[in-house]
């Protein structure tokens, strides 16, 4: 039994926007009855503004396929085509309060139908499989699709690829190929770890400042027979006492400034270094 959210159940039992649009401006069709799910998306588009006035769907598939299709139509209505193209399969899944991992391919199918419909509207040729690069023969999944979905969703394992694209979920013969593709993607381009702004706790900050002073600053000063001692840290204020040859040196202001620059670079922009009197 799948753990579906209430919203998935709701959008499956009472789906919104089911049916056909008469004289649609765009139609996107993906999947097949053989694969076990298929989605036909109809759009009515305002020619002036490019806004999606209406969206309807017909889906053959399981509860999450029907719910994902319905969620897609709700998400695109009122958006311009360009805005609609920003909708990712994750957005569809999130709209539904999440999908079971094994059912993520339903959200991917929604995203694909949307792309197909918009390409259809813009008169672009439906993208055909490039020669000979169908990786999963059971579910007719191309290398291109595996790469795209893997990068968009940060997928690193074959199981994840199967959950999101079905590739490898049939006879399993293509699993080594999928693995090779994944190795290729993530070794050429390591997964981008989103740069979180460093939020240091006071303890971390103090430890870091001590480390930098001990490891990087003191050896330089000591080489010139000078030295520095960390006296106190108060918020972003760092109190230092210059020692040895530095004491009374005419260049002491420059030295303090240099230490401040170093700490600003390595710890935080707001660091202020003051000489302890």
């Amino acid at each position, binding site marked *: 039994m799948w753990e579906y959210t209430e919203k998935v159940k709701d959008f499956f039992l009472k789906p919104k926007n089911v049916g056909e649009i008469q004289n649609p401006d765009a139609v996107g069709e993906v999947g097949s009855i053989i694969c076990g799910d*298929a989605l036909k998306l109809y759009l009515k588009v305002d020619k002036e503004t490019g806004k999606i006035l209406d969206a309807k769907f017909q889906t053959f598939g399981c509860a999450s396929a029907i719910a994902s299709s319905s969620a897609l139509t709700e998400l695109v209505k009122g958006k311009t085509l360009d805005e609609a193209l920003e909708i990712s399969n994750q957005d569809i899944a999130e709209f539904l309060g999440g999908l079971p991992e094994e059912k993520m391919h339903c959200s991917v199918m929604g995203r694909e139908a949307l792309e197909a419909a918009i390409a259809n509207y813009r008169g672009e040729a439906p993208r055909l499989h490039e020669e000979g690069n169908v990786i999963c023969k059971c579910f007719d999944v191309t290398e291109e699709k595996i790469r795209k979905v893997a990068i968009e969703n940060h997928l690193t394992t074959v199981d994840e690829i199967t959950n999101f694209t079905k590739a490898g979920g049939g006879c399993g013969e293509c699993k080594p190929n999928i693995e090779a593709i994944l190795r290729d993607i993530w070794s050429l381009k390591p997964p981008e770890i989103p740069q979180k702004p460093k939020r240091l706790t006071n303890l971390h900050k103090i430890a870091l400042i001590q480390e930098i002073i001990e490891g990087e600053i003191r050896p330089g000063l000591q080489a010139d027979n000078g030295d520095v001692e960390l006296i106190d840290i108060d918020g972003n204020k760092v109190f230092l006492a210059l020692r040895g040859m530095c004491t009374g040196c005419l260049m002491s202001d420059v030295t303090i400034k240099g230490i401040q620059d170093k700490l600003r670079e390595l710890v935080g922009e707001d660091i202020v270094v003051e000489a302890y009197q």
Partner: protein
Amino acid sequence: MTTIYLDNNATTRIAPEVPNEMLPYLTDLYGNPSSMHTFGGQLYRRIEEARAKVASFIGAEPGEIIFTSCGTESDNTAIMSAVESHPHKKHVVTTRVEHPAVLNLCRHLARKGYRVTFLPVNSLGQLDMDALLKAVDEDTAVASIMYANNETGVIFPIKEISEILKKRGILFHTDAVQAVGKIPIDLKTLPVDMLTLSGHKIHAPKGVGALYVRKGTRFYPYIIGGHQERGRRAGTENVASIIGLGKACELAEKHLREETTYLKTLTDRLESALLKCCPDVRVNGDINNRLPNTANLSFEYVEGEAILLRLNEYGICASSGSACTSGSLEPSHVLRAMGVPYTAVHGSIRFSLSRYNTEKEIDTVIDLMPGVIRALREMSPYGRQTIACPPE
């Protein structure tokens, strides 16, 4: 909302008489049957009584029954015993439509270097007997062929198969988990060597099964340890559940004849009404050689999981061979082995009945099903037929 349980090939309701019989062994009589003191040792007798009931139900001798933890354990024990006790034979025969308990074990043996023949079936799910005759040879350690299929209910000609194999001196195991309790089985006239049965498919609790091993059959234990079950299955006995299995067999034996007729009437009523009310429906499996409780129908252009979850809203429990319900992405291996087109496999629904189902429940399903199918077909890009049941 009341539950209408039509998934009895998955598991069954415990017969109300069964827990009553088990209760003392879950409370006061907690001893170990292997103990020397009366408090524990007296339970040994109770287990032997249960063994006699199970044996009587299938026409066996009590000494030919080994209690196990489930059908899967019985299947594994039987096949592994056969290969272990015939170390020079490196060939195993089974079918493409077995339960995973047998199928995956045979695949495992294949990886270990055994030659495994998976016999095909035809579009009605009937076994290819010629293929069986061609497959077996002096290198065959065992043939394991199910009695009746869990998905379609199709019954294999076990009498004919067992006689052929006996003549050729091939050890024969049958997984009869679905057949026991639904059709009469008499091992006095049926020359199979080993037979698997499971408690929870015949209104006993889960966690208990049995393996019949014909007297004189070479046997090698699967679970190694203590002397329980005369050294053939180690591990302290699951006393209460064994008592429960005995009781369930006693009940089944008493009612089998009338139940078979009752189940067939209800199943036929359901099947013929759905065939009439819903367009583009087909039956999967040989209806002339089928368990009396099982109907497997394919509703074209709609997907099985969606049907099940809509039925679930009405408290109706059934199952499907569709890919989405299997946990894998592959639809039923049984229906595919039969060559059922994918369009129909995805929309396959199995109804499996028990003695506890009523005519009223069946009529409720007959009333609701066309609406469920119609609603899903209206959503589907493929099927648009909306013919409903003509008012009677």
